[in-house]
């Protein structure tokens, strides 16, 4: 039992799987983005090289900072993301629960932002403070929509909150096949975009403006973990949407191809959105989420309640 849990968490579908896949998908992102800008782009293993090189670099810690928080934040975020990936992966690959349901997952996804903010503001750097403020505001924006997005599959599956129950409910028709499902996916995709701080929602980190915001003071292994976290999100977060709207993976024969396609569809859409949009201002992003996307997602929820 304990060994099983450890295997799930650290090997498959947890840490090792999502980290390796994430670093590879990160390469796809960088390569495609480079092609968008008529550059050549990095080699396949560039993300691995970056990670291991950062591990060997010096860590610089601000003298007056709350050091324990500064060090713990990226590692706790890493732990949380591993757990999220395992929960989602267990539901997708094995149709099993892993100690938490969708409500737990929703809140765990907030933990990443909390850690980013706490780690950033523990340093006292003014750019980090500004970035942290933006990160929370963005969280407020996307959280409202994300709740609505999560409620759509909950309602459609007859008020189930367990991830595996949601997949079973989709065994005779994915939720994406309905109007409310489509609306939910569109809104969910943009939420994920914001949660991962990809353009147009890279407001908190805005390299050219506030120098990576909360990450500004991070260096060495701790920065390596933040980068790794970001790559893990590239796997875990799209898979959440797969669970919610595309049903599970049937890993036999042609099913494998379908599974890969389901995942790639979301990732490719994310990369396209990322590369074709300029960064929003934070107040415009809030307005977009609260005034445009939230009503849209609410219409989706109404349709879901009506069974459409």
């Amino acid at each position, binding site marked *: 039992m304990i060994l099983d*849990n450890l295997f799930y*968490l650290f090997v498959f579908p947890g840490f090792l799987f999502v980290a390796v896949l994430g670093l590879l998908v990160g390469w796809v992102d960088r390569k495609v983005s480079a092609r968008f800008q008529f550059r050549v782009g990095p080699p396949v293993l560039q993300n691995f090289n970056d990670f291991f090189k950062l591990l060997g670099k010096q860590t610089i810690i601000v003298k007056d900072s709350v050091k324990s928080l500064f060090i713990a934040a990226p590692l*706790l975020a890493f732990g949380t993301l*591993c*757990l999220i990936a395992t929960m989602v992966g267990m539901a997708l690959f094995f149709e099993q629960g892993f100690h938490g349901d969708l409500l737990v997952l929703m809140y765990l996804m907030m933990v990443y932002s909390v850690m980013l903010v706490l780690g950033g503001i523990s340093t006292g*750097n003014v750019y980090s403070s500004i970035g942290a403020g933006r990160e929370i505001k963005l*969280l407020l924006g996307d959280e409202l929509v994300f709740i609505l997005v999560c409620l759509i599959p909950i309602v459609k599956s007859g008020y189930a909150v367990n991830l595996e129950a949601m997949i079973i409910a989709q065994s005779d028709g994915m939720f994406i096949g309905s109007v409310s499902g489509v609306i939910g996916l569109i809104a969910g995709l943009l939420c994920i975009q914001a949660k991962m701080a990809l353009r147009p929602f890279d407001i908190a980190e805005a390299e050219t403006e506030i120098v990576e915001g909360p990450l500004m003071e991070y260096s060495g*292994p701790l920065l390596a*973990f933040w980068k790794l976290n970001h790559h893990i999100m590239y796997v875990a977060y799209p898979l959440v949407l797969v669970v919610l709207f595309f049903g599970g993976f049937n890993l036999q024969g042609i099913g494998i191809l379908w599974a890969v396609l389901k995942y790639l569809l979301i990732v490719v859409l994310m990369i396209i959105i990322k590369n074709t949009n300029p960064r929003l201002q934070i107040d415009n992003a809030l307005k977009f989420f609260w005034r445009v996307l939230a009503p849209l997602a609410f219409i989706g929820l109404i349709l879901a309640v009506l069974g459409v």
Partner: protein
Amino acid sequence: MIDYILLLVLLPVIVGIVNLFLPVVLQKILNSALFIFLLYPVYLLFYQSQWTFEWMGILIFSVDKLSLMMVVSIQIISLIVYIFLLKSLTRVHEKIFMVYYPLTVAVCNAAVMSVNSWALLIAWGLSGIFLFLVGLMGTQENNSESAKKTMLIVGGSDVLLILGLVLLRFLEYSNGWQLWKIGMPLEGELARVAFVSLLIAAFAKAGVFPFHTWMPDYSKTTLTEGVAFLPAALDKLLGIYLLARLVTSVFVIGIRMNLILMSIGAFTIIAAVMMALIQHNGKKLLGYHAVSQVGYMVLGIGSGSVLAFAGGLFHLLNNVLYKTGLFLSLGSVEKQTGTADLDDMGGLGNKMFLAFLPALIASLSISGIPPFNGFFSKWMIYQGILEFAKDLTAGQQLWALVCLILAVFGSALTLASFLKFLHTIFLGKPREKYKDVKDAPFNQWLATGIISLLCVGTGLFAVKMPLESLIYPAMKEMGMALPVWLGTYSPLLVFGLILLAFIPGMVLFLLIKNIRYDEIYLGGMEAVEKFRISGTGWYNEVRNMRPLKGIYTAAELKIFDLYSWLKNIAKGLGKLLSLLHMGQLQFYNLWIIIGAMVLFWMMK
């Protein structure tokens, strides 16, 4: 044999009165003995099925499982706050507070144990009076104003409590003045009036919209210890206790009433937390959160689902813990820096680490971050609402879901508000003027530390600790079914697995351990103090967004404050009446004649 149930009330009263004549040192010793001793009858109560106290053949006090839950919470929280009090108050305040403190505990104990209308009324009223008296001990100039406001709202609602209890007596004559076992359907006007009156009394005490307006003002002006003890903890227990009794034992409410209560709860959450978001005073910010958290309890208890009901009660206990912890941590900081103004603080996390850590844990708990206790109760409430919504019509389903959305979103707003709280006080760039600040003294961090441990403990062992030992027995006694989870969540495993993934990272970091300490990097500029932001303005974008801007402006003008409306109406009426005072005898005669005519016409 001594009647232990009576000890819970009599002993604190005696100690309070004796304290009047003692010097502070003896007061402290006596109080310490009292609060440690009071744990003993509570311990005994666990093993007794039912304890009662009769006086002249009338049943006055009785402790069933719900009362037991409240009694346990009252004793524990009053002991913890008392540890904090041992070294925190100024001499002037200390002397009086040591008298009020045991007396308050006595009346609160009496209120939750009363099964007789009269006893309840007296205890309830007295607890309001102590709230007022503690409010008068503020540190700011306008504290008497806010104490008065509190007295008028909370005391005024006592009138409705009397009305409600009298109506109950009238409706169920055979019951006498006996309470809590009626089970009356909400039919007929009188029953409805009784229900609404009692509901308002409970809401005013706990601070539910629109009767919440005393809470933020009171929090801002009163002693932090007083706030941590009364409105944040004991008044919540009392108010929600009454609410729980009302919807389970006294009345039988239908789905429509469930939906109304849920809406009130959800609206309270969102309205109060939105106000908290933009506050510049730490105590007022916490005061608004004290209101917002009650929303979750009303939402849970009002929803009619057993799962949400258990969640609501659990949330009450959680709120008592973390809200008291937050006020006390802020109190420690306030003692050191001399201010609770958020604009004036910053970067104290390093200097006051022992105040920061409990504040961090309590902040994460109140924001519902797993695996702390706040998340568990919220998780139960959300599931309960989903369970409740399942069998409704489409319109009602949507209505319930909107309440759920507001509650979940309110929790994100709470998180935002508390990250701001942490940033403005503890994190961000340290300020020059606080470079000599000392950490919280031993007794203070002991108190907040115990609360933090309880927050973590009740989060990880939620099913064992409050649920199976306190809440389920109470529900069973009230004839409710035990809740069945919709989802899955094992806090211990979630926490353990996060920790397991955290450890290799930490080990890796420690193995590499190539660290250099340096100043803040600002692209080559010197990190002087002007390069800092306080963080109080983080949410200006939210405040300035239409239509929120208009609502915020209106709220700051006290348009939504029932009290200020009533005050203005009373003032207007007073002006009108003063016009009649003309100082001429013939006019007074005229008024008398007109008055007599009206009377005769009415009696006709």
